[in-house]
């Protein structure tokens, strides 16, 4: 079983600490996505796990073995780099087989393994080509193939899709997801793209400034972000934030007075909030709509409309200057400059304290990952 455990992992460069004690527990077969803005330390963490950089303190174990001081090759990992890092002067076959050859495998073994990996990745017709004769997507597959043939316990992916164009990115994303199901291997995947994180991960680790901000299933992060940072990071377009003050505390909801005077409800726990505390209220663009059908209504001036076909993003400015985005229906006829009313339900509101901590939402939806759901269904059926 290839569990990966990180205990209080720290990394400094000279006096600068870039990772401040990372704790992470990754189960065998899990697809874990490390996500965060650039410079948050996610790539550094991956390189520490790979063994390409030294761990300053803490303990890293892979498959119940502490590997802090082992070289990359002895850790049972395989890494796929953002730039693919294919050996430019070697054919695809040689690129994929080089590690096996170094390991002293027999020629027949090598051929069998490489051909099998090539078949899985549909690159069997490219084995004699040089990397420069391949397209970006094909190079990407060769890089993945090179990782597969080594039969690693853990696959490490460092932003593998960011060099591909949009269409290919979506396609490769689906393929990586299928590959994970097929191989059943543990995968640690780094990306700055929250859509990739949401679609691929069984578990998402949101990182910010060298710390784990939150770790959980995609829907848990979406429904119950623990901090304002995670709330803003997961979801697209970004969650709308508005400043306000607590005006009444109830067991099932809070009343919050926005800076424009509107009083709005939010179905969250009050925790240690007191009346008069300043808070930030957050509502996702997709939980707002045009009109006055829901309980809470806001009014403002439209500054921009983006029509996507299935939906329109309406950018508007409230009277107190706050900018918000509303995901309106695709048939919305709103135009720039118009004054409109938008509304949302207090159930979908998030509330964050001044320090950025979220209040637990009381009526949020399902938070189970598809893997968990499948497991539950299987248990239920059995």
């Amino acid at each position, binding site marked *: 079983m290839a569990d990966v455990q990180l205990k209080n992992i720290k990394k400094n460069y000279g006096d600068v600490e870039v990772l401040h004690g990372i704790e992470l527990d990754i189960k065998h077969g899990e697809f874990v996505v490390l996500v965060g803005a650039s410079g948050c330390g996610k790539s550094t963490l991956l390189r520490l796990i790979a063994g390409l950089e030294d761990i300053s303190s803490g303990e890293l174990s892979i498959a119940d073995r502490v590997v802090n001081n082992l070289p990359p090759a*002895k850790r049972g*990992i395989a890494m796929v*780099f953002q730039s693919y890092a294919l*050996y430019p002067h070697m054919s695809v076959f040689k690129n994929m087989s080089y*590690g096996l050859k*170094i390991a002293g495998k027999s020629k027949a073994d090598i051929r069998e393994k490489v051909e099998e990996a090539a078949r899985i990745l549909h690159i069997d017709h490219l084995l004699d080509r040089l990397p420069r004769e391949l397209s970006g997507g094909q190079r990407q597959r060769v890089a993945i193939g090179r990782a597969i043939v080594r039969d690693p316990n853990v696959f490490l992916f460092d932003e593998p899709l960011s060099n591909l164009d949009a269409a290919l990115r979506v396609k490769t994303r689906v393929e990586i997801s299928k590959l994970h199901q097929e191989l059943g291997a543990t995968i640690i995947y780094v990306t700055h793209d929250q859509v990739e994180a949401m679609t691929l991960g069984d578990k998402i680790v949101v990182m910010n400034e060298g710390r784990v901000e939150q770790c959980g299933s995609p829907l848990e992060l979406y429904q119950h972000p623990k901090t304002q940072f995670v709330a803003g990071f997961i979801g697209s377009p970004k969650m709308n934030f508005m400043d306000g003050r607590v005006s009444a505390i109830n067991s099932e909801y809070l009343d919050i007075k926005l800076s424009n005077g509107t009083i709005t409800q939010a179905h969250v726990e009050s925790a240690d909030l007191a009346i008069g505390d300043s808070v930030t209220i957050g509502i996702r663009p997709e939980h707002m709509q045009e009109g006055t059908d829901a309980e809470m209504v806001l009014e403002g001036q439209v500054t921009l409309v983006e029509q996507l076909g299935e939906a329109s993003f309406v950018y508007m400015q409230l009277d107190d200057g706050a900018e918000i985005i509303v995901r309106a229906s695709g048939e919305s006829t709103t135009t720039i400059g118009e004054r409109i009313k938008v509304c949302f339900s207090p159930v979908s509101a998030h509330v964050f304290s001044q320090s950025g901590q979220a209040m637990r939402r009381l009526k949020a939806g399902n938070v189970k990952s598809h893997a968990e759901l499948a497991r539950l269904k299987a248990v239920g059926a059995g």
Partner: protein
Amino acid sequence: MLNQMTIPQKLSIKHGSGKKVMMHGVLMIYTFIALFPIFVIIINAFKTRKAIFKDPLALPTPDTFSMVGFEQVLLRSEFELFFANSMVVTLLSLFFVLLLGAMVAFALTEYKFRGNLFIAILFAMGIMIPIRLGTVSILNLMSNLNLVNTLTALVLVYIAQGLPLAVYILSEFIRQIPKELKEAARCDNVSEYKIFFTIVLPLIRPALATVAVFTMIPIWNDLWFPLILAPGEGNQTITLGVQQFIGQYVTDWNSVLAALTLAIVPVLVLYLIFSRQLIRGLTSGAVK
């Protein structure tokens, strides 16, 4: 990626045609100046002594054509021996300069260790200070080592002479090899030696060819160190051997010019071999 460094991207076709003519004009004048002495040597090598002095710039005619210089050089001197000495010294020095130079460059760019900068500075000083300033101490050293009048002495001195520039140029190229390539290899359990020989060396082949050309020509043409370190009969190199035809009172110009003409051939062949590598390096990544 790596190949981009060898493509002179700015050299596009977008220059105006006037500029182009001027550029080619300048280059042609330069080529003419550079080739003129060689041209004079070659035409005069095939002329009689009288004709050489009468009209040094004339081409050989049936009347003035003569191979007496070549006969003299090939039959009445130890030309083959000089030639072989030069070949051995040049090729051995070249091999070690390239191998050691690339190894030093790899170590200096790839690994962080105490004294890294100090060693790099020593090599930089090697570029700035001509090795000939140290001739006396070198001669002393060689005499203490009992290496005077051996080709080994020459090879050692030429390695020292060629290394600094080689390290400098190769470091630049090695620095441009993406670090992910080496990291990927380390994940593949490839040893550091194997990384150097199977990944780094093949990728800096164009740079090695450049360094080879820069290193080879001064060694082949050198007169100074052969004269000082290995002037004995059996160890003369070709440039030194030619000197025997130049006397204080009489100089056998036919033989001198014939010997020089013959001496051009091997450098030319080596140059052609390396420049093929250069061109291959320039075009190998052009498709991306």
